[in-house]
C-alpha cells in the first residue's frame, strides 16, 4: 500500500512542479542546501569556549526540527497526499497509518536534513571514534524524529489548517515569520555571539533540554566518556519516537473521521454594529468607504499587507538604533507609507470578480474609486504621520524635521491618487489558489520605487538644493511645496483613474472574470 501511495504522490508532485512553480522550487532547494551546508559547517569549525559547539548544534537542530513540525501548518495538510483522499477507503486505520508513515520516509527533504545533522558526526569525530559513533546514532534518531513528528503534526494541525480560516492563519504566520526573520537578521550575530562566548547559561540550558538538543548532548557526553548521560539522551530520543508512533494511529483515525468545518463563524459583529450610530454619511461615497474600511480590518491579504508594511517600516529603522545609529528613526513613517502604497496598487485586481456590483449600479464609478482612495488615506495616512512625528521626536535629530515634514504628507496625499490610477491601469487578478500573481508582485516592487519618486521629487529637489547651499529656508520651503505637489498629484491621478474606470470598467471586469 505504501508503494501505491508513493507512486500517487510522485504523480501529483510531478504535475505540480512545472513552469513557474518549478522555478520557485529550485530557489527553495538552493536556499535549503545553503542552510544545510551552513549547519554542517557549524559542526566543523572550532569553538573557543568548551561546550559552545554543543549549544550551537543544539540550536540549529531545533531550527531543523521546527521546520519539519511546522511545515504542515504552512502547506496546509500534506500538499500532495491530502488526508481527505483516504476518508472513504475501506482500509483499517492501523494499516493506513503504517502506510502513510512509510510514505513520509520517502521524502527528498531528508537528504538536506541528513547533510545538516551530519554536523553532529563531524563535531563528535574531533573527540574520537566513540563520540563520532554517538553522532551517527544521534543523526539517525533525529531524522526519524523529524519524519515522525512531522507526520503526527499533520494529524494534529491538519483539521485546523485544512479550513479556509486555518490556511489564512498559516499564510499569515508564514509571511510574518519571513518578514521578521529577514528584518531581524541583524539580531542573529548578537545571538550567535552570546552562544559562542558562553555568556548565556540560560539560553544554553534551554536549547539542551529541548528534545532537539539531545543529539548534541549525547555527542558531547560521549566525548567526555560520560556514558550514562549519553545513554539517557539517546534513550530519550528513542522513547519520544516510540510515544509519537504509538499516538499516530488513533490520531489518524480521529483526523479521518472528524469533519473539517470552516472554523468558527465570522468575526463580524453586526449586532453591535447595528446599535452603534453610523459615523459615515449615507451616501454612495460613504457606502464604499464603509465597505473598504471593513475589508482593511477583515481581509487577510489586506491586514497582512498593512502589518508587513508596519513591521518592515518600523523595524528597519529601529534596529540600527540598538547599536546607537538613530539617523534612520525619523524615516520609519515614510518607509511604512511607501510599502503600504506599493502593496495597495492592485485594489481592483485583489477584489476579483466582485467588481460586477459596481458595474450594475448606475453611475457608481466615481464613488467606488474615490471611496477606495479615501479608505486607504484614512487607514495609512494618520498612522504614517504619527510614526513620523513620534520617531523624529525621539531620535533627537531636529535637523530631520524639514525633511520628514516635506516628504511624509506629500507621499500620503500623492499615493492615494497614484495607487488608484495604477490599480485601474494594471489589473492583476489573483492566481488560481488566491495568492498574488507574479506580475502583481513585480508591480508592487516597481511601485516601491515609482510611487515615492513621483510623489516626492519636488520636495526632495528643494531639500537637496537647500542642503547643498546651506539654505535652511529653502529646506523649509520644501514643506509647503511638497504638500501642494502631493495634493495636486493625488487629485489629478485620482481623476485620471476615475475617467479610465468609467471608460474601461467592462474590460477590467472581463479580465477579472476570465481569471
Amino acid at each position, binding site marked *: 500500500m505504501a508503494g501505491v501511495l508513493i507512486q500517487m504522490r510522485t504523480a501529483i508532485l510531478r504535475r505540480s512542479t512545472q513552469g513557474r512553480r518549478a522555478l520557485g522550487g529550485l530557489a527553495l532547494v538552493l536556499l535549503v542546501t545553503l542552510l544545510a551546508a551552513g549547519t554542517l559547517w557549524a559542526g566543523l569549525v572550532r569553538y573557543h569556549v568548551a561546550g559552545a559547539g554543543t549549544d550551537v548544534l543544539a540550536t540549529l537542530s531545533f531550527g531543523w526540527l521546527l521546520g519539519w513540525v511546522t511545515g504542515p501548518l504552512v502547506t496546509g495538510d500534506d500538499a500532495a497526499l491530502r488526508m481527505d483522499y483516504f476518508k472513504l477507503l475501506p482500509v483499517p486505520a492501523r494499516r493506513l497509518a503504517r502506510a502513510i508513515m512509510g510514505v513520509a520516509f520517502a521524502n527528498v527533504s531528508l537528504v538536506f536534513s541528513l547533510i545538516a545533522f551530519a554536523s553532529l558526526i563531524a563535531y563528535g569525530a574531533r573527540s574520537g571514534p566513540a563520540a563520532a559513533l554517538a553522532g551517527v546514532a544521534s543523526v539517525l534518531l533525529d531524522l526519524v524524529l523529524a519524519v515522525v513528528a512531522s507526520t503526527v503534526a499533520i494529524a494534529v494541525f491538519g483539521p485546523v489548517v485544512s479550513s479556509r480560516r486555518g490556511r489564512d492563519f498559516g499564510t499569515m504566520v508564514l509571511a510574518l515569520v519571513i518578514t521578521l526573520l529577514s528584518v531581524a537578521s541583524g539580531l542573529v550575530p548578537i545571538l550567535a555571539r552570546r552562544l559562542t562566548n558562553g555568556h548565556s547559561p540560560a539560553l544554553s540550558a534551554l536549547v539542551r533540554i529541548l528534545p532537539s538538543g539531545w543529539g548534541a548532548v549525547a555527542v558531547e557526553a560521549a566525548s567526555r566518556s560520560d556514558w550514562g548521560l549519553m545513554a539517557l539522551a539517546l534513550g530519550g530520543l528513542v522513547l519520544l519516537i516510540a510515544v509519537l508512533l504509538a499516538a499516530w494511529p488513533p490520531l489518524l483515525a480521529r483526523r479521518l473521521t472528524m469533519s473539517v468545518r470552516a472554523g468558527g463563524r*465570522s468575526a*463580524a459583529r453586526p449586532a453591535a454594529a447595528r446599535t452603534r450610530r453610523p459615523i459615515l454619511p449615507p451616501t454612495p461615497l460613504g*457606502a464604499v468607504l464603509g465597505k473598504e474600511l471593513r475589508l482593511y480590518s477583515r481581509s487577510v491579504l489586506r491586514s497582512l499587507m498593512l502589518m508587513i508594511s508596519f513591521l518592515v517600516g518600523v523595524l528597519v529603522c529601529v534596529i540600527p538604533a540598538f547599536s546607537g545609529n538613530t539617523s534612520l528613526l525619523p524615516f520609519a513613517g515614510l518607509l511604512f507609507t511607501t510599502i503600504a502604497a506599493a502593496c495597495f496598487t492592485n485594489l481592483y485586481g485583489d477584489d476579483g470578480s466582485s467588481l*460586477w456590483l459596481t458595474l450594475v449600479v448606475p453611475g457608481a464609478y466615481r464613488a467606488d474609486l474615490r471611496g477606495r482612495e479615501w479608505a486607504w488615506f484614512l487607514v495609512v495616512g494618520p498612522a504614517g504621520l504619527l510614526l513620523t512625528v513620534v520617531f523624529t521626536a525621539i531620535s533627537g535629530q531636529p535637523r530631520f524635521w524639514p525633511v520628514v515634514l516635506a516628504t511624509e504628507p506629500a507621499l500620503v496625499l500623492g499615493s492615494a491618487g497614484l495607487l488608484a490610477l495604477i490599480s485601474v491601469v494594471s489589473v492583476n487578478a489573483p492566481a488560481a489558489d488566491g495568492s498574488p500573481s507574479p506580475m502583481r508582485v513585480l508591480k508592487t516592487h516597481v511601485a516601491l520605487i515609482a510611487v515615492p519618486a513621483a510623489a516626492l521629487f519636488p520636495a526632495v529637489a528643494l531639500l537637496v538644493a537647500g542642503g547643498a547651499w546651506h539654505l535652511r529656508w529653502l529646506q523649509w520651503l520644501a514643506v509647503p511645496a511638497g504638500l501642494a505637489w502631493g495634493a495636486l498629484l493625488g487629485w489629478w491621478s485620482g481623476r485620471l483613474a476615475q475617467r479610465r474606470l468609467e471608460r474601461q470598467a467592462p474590460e477590467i471586469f*472581463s479580465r477579472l472574470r476570465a481569471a
Partner: protein
Amino acid sequence: MRGPQAPNGSPPGEGDAPALEFAGLYKHFGPNVAVDHIDLRVPRGSFFGLVGPNGAGKTTSLSMAVGLLRPDGGTVRIFGRDVWSDPVAAKALIGVLPDGLALPDRLTGREVLTFLGLLRGMSRAVVGHRADELLRVLELDSADGTVVADYSTGMRKKITLATALLHSPRLLVLDEPFEAVDPVSAATIRVILQRFVAGGGSVIFSSHVMALVEQLCDHVAVLAKGRVEVSGPVAEVSAGRSLEDAFVHIVGARPGGTEGLSWLAS
C-alpha cells in the same frame, strides 16, 4: 431568428418598448463566436426562460444585457433605453443575479445589502427596512453575523438575489438562479419571482432545468451555438410535447448513456 415571434424592425418607442430587446447582438472571443447576431424580445410583464446546452451563449448574452460585457456588435435595450449608450437610465431599471461571481466576501449579508443600497443612493432607513425583510424572507436572518465567505453556495445565491431585488427594479436578469439552491429555498424564490411578475415586473432567467422553465415561464427562447433556435410562448415552442423533448429535438442532441458500462449492474 427562426421563431414564432419575429423581431420588430424599427426600435419601438419607450411607451410600449419591450422589457428587454436584443438586436443583432454579436460577441466573439478570438476565433470562437459566442453570440451570433441574436435578435430577441422579452415582452413586458413576461416570465421569460432562456434555455440551451452548456456553451450556448446564455451567460454571454445576459452579461451583455446588463452592462458587464461589451458587445462587438448590435444593441441591447431595456424598456427602450440602450444599455451601452445610456447606461445610467438602463441600469436603474434592472436587478441582476450573475452566476459564479464573487461578492465582497468579508462582509455579512446585511452589510452587502447596506453597501449596495447606499451606493444606489437609497436612504439608510429604506435600505435597513428592505434588508431586514429580504433577509427574513430568504431565511438568511439566522446567519446575520456570518460573513459571505462562510455562506454555502445556496446562501450566496440567495444573498445575490437579495441584491438584485433591493432597489425594486422593473426587470430581473437572473443567470441560473435555481442552481445549488435547496428545494425549500427554490420554492421561496419561485414564489417571490411569481409575485414580482404578478405585480407587473418582468423576469428573464437562464436555466438547465426544463421542468422548472415549463412550470414558471410564459415565454421561452432556446439558444444553441450562439443563436436563437426558437423563441415564443412556451406552448408554441413545445408544440404539444414536453419542453424537455422539444428542447432535445430543437438542439438536435441525442441523450447518451445507453452504451458500455455492462459491469456496473453485475
